[in-house]
């Protein structure tokens, strides 16, 4: 069991680093196995002035792969471009969404689930980061199925199928329409009556 976890952990960590550098150009992400006492997330001694980066790989040497019985947790570390590494709680709302998405995609890339439902995950993102996120979803749309709930027009534009839902006069939800081609999705989600 432990070995297969270590292999999976190594694969997920590798993908996490890749996805973080895609969603945060110039950024670095790493997953670490927590010391059993568990150091708080993402707290690094920031080394000022040095071309900042995450602690060197050699720190991994003391990871005891076979601490049987002691399931070591997984810590998330990120270092964004130009900024020193710091506690995940100090990241901004949009930055936190993207780090969380990076973790989900890192797992997806090792073991894709047959489908994903993403409910307004881009609510905190600015235009540039919405684009980065949507590019990621488009890149992997052939590996799995994405069902995305949104109010953002730009997210609607990448739909293969677009569903409209509305609340009817009788107080119940109605499934409005289903458009197949990508060009037809320029409409808005304004609360108009049934489209």
């Amino acid at each position: 069991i432990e070995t297969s976890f270590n292999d999976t952990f190594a694969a997920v960590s590798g993908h996490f680093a890749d996805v973080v550098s895609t969603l945060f150009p110039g950024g670095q992400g790493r997953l670490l196995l927590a010391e059993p006492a568990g150091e708080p997330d993402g707290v690094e001694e920031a080394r000022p002035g040095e071309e900042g980066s995450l602690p060197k790989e050699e720190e991994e040497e003391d990871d005891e792969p076979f601490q049987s019985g002691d399931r070591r947790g997984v810590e998330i570390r990120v270092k964004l471009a130009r900024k020193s590494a710091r506690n995940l709680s100090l990241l901004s709302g949009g930055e936190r969404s993207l780090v969380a998405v990076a973790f989900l995609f890192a797992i997806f890339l090792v073991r894709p689930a047959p489908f994903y439902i993403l409910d307004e995950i881009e609510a905190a993102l600015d235009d540039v980061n919405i684009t980065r996120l949507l590019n990621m979803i488009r890149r992997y749309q052939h590996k799995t199925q994405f069902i995305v709930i949104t109010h953002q027009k730009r997210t609607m534009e990448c739909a293969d199928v677009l569903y409209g839902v509305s609340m009817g006069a009788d107080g119940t939800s109605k499934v409005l329409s289903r458009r197949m081609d990508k060009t037809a999705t320029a409409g808005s989600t304004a609360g108009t009556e049934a489209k």
Partner: protein
Amino acid sequence: MFLKSVKARGFKSFARSAEFGFESGITVVVGPNGSGKSNIADAVMWAMGEQSPSAVRGASMQDVIFSGSDKLAPAGMAEVELVFDNSNGALPIEFSEVAVSRRIYRDGEGAYFINRSSCRLVDVVELLSDAGLGKGTHIVSQGRVEAILESKPEERRGYIEEAA
């Protein structure tokens, strides 16, 4: 394998039977606030065996049953059916389509079905976890995208263990 359709009846704001057919690519769902979009995500999570009422935003599991509107009486039962395309055989069942469904009645009694024959919760959970649909990260509920960052390191390990 992919999710081919979701049918909901008496489930939350879907008083009458509603059906969504999905393709394998990107499906986007839009609509005004309160129209029922997140209820679809809840319906899928619930049909797959979700046991915690708060995961579907209720105080008790019966909160998923349509509780009436100005014009309509409350429903006596909620039912959701998911149909999976199994042409790649990811689900260890002989069929090219597999239907998983769940019901709950006002008195709290519930029932699960695989291809319309009654089964237990554990059968549904086992079937789906073989296909990578365990407790994992495949449904991100509204406002919960950062939950991964707030979860304990041991929980995150659990997600990786599931992928092992």
